[in-house]
């Protein structure tokens, strides 16, 4: 599970109001290399919940030097875009779980795949 996906994932259990952001408890993390696409990263930044991304990076010990708030004119800053590219697309949680901040319900992650299957009634 890449952090870009994590930034979009939310608990969809019925009745849960604040199912985002899911708390990451990782037991295995991998860092890969992926071709940098500045345009894509730039376009995704406005869609992100920036504080949730920073927090996720901290949980994984990968905050490096990402600013806690978005800098203006980030589209022109290639250094910054590369840092965002790395944290969004190159860091992957392989094993662990995601926890709902409201209910505490856990969604396990196995082989990089989060299990979002709900039980009857959820």
């Amino acid at each position: 599970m890449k952090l870009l996906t994590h930034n979009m994932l939310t608990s969809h259990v019925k009745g849960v109001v604040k199912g985002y952001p899911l708390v990451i408890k990782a037991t295995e993390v991998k860092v890969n290399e992926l071709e940098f696409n500045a345009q894509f990263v730039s376009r995704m930044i406005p869609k992100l919940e920036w504080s949730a991304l920073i927090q996720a990076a901290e949980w994984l010990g990968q905050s490096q030097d990402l600013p806690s708030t978005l800098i203006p004119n980030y589209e022109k800053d290639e250094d910054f875009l590369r840092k965002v590219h790395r944290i969004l697309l190159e860091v992957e949680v392989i094993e662990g779980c995601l926890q709902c901040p409201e209910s505490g319900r856990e969604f396990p992650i196995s082989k990089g795949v989060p299990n979002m299957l709900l039980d009857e009634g959820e």
Partner: protein
Amino acid sequence: MAPPEVYYNEEEAKKYSQNSRIIEIQTQMSERAVELLSLPEDQACYLLDVGCGSGLSGDHLSEVGHFWVGVDISTAMLDVALRREVEGDLVLSDMGQGMPFRPGTFDGCVSISALQWLCNADKKTHSPPKRLYRFFSSLYSTLARGARAVFQIYPENSEQLELITAQAMKAGFTGGLVVDYPNSSKAKKFFLCLFAGVSGVLPKGLESEATDRSVSSQAQFTAQRSRFKNMKGKSVKKSKDWIVEKKERRRRQGKGVRADTKYTGRHRRPHF
């Protein structure tokens, strides 16, 4: 018929990585679905693949340069996708329970041969209309305004089609059904094209060249298809551009190549 998470066990899942006919058909349908998405040209988009399975459709999305997230209910199929090292992120999830993503996340959605599974009541507690509605309403929310969702489906009958479209409309979608090759029982394909937030013009279905003469608009759409280059600057595999380029390459290598004529790379009926 068993529910999808049982039907797509390891043995069935293996077919999706080994059977070349299945792979070919799924890839063709994925190409057509992406075409129908009408995404802005030369832009890497963030897409959702519903019922991504072993990642055959996802591979096409990556080939064309997009980033994607796939959801599927079968661990066996997702295991195949992992072994095939697909580029998209995978999520184990039941589409009838809704899409677990924030509003406005995706630029588009594709789904190949998956939606009809929602029409079966696999458990006593399942109500197909409720599950369809939960799926469509959560999908509507998670798509960006103006985004499209394209579903390749095999509808069993008109009741099933009506059930699906009714719940989609109830969830706020506009759009309709695009039928390719309506006169060929073998080649006929159904694509449900849904628009989130904006009314769009429904694309025309593909027609077999032998049957339809009055086709200037149809031909235009077909020509557009083969001209599509992907983000990496390469022609989409098997398109007319790709064929012409490959022939040039082989000529440069000094290999014998047939001359280019007006028939080169012409779209042929699927039985070829």
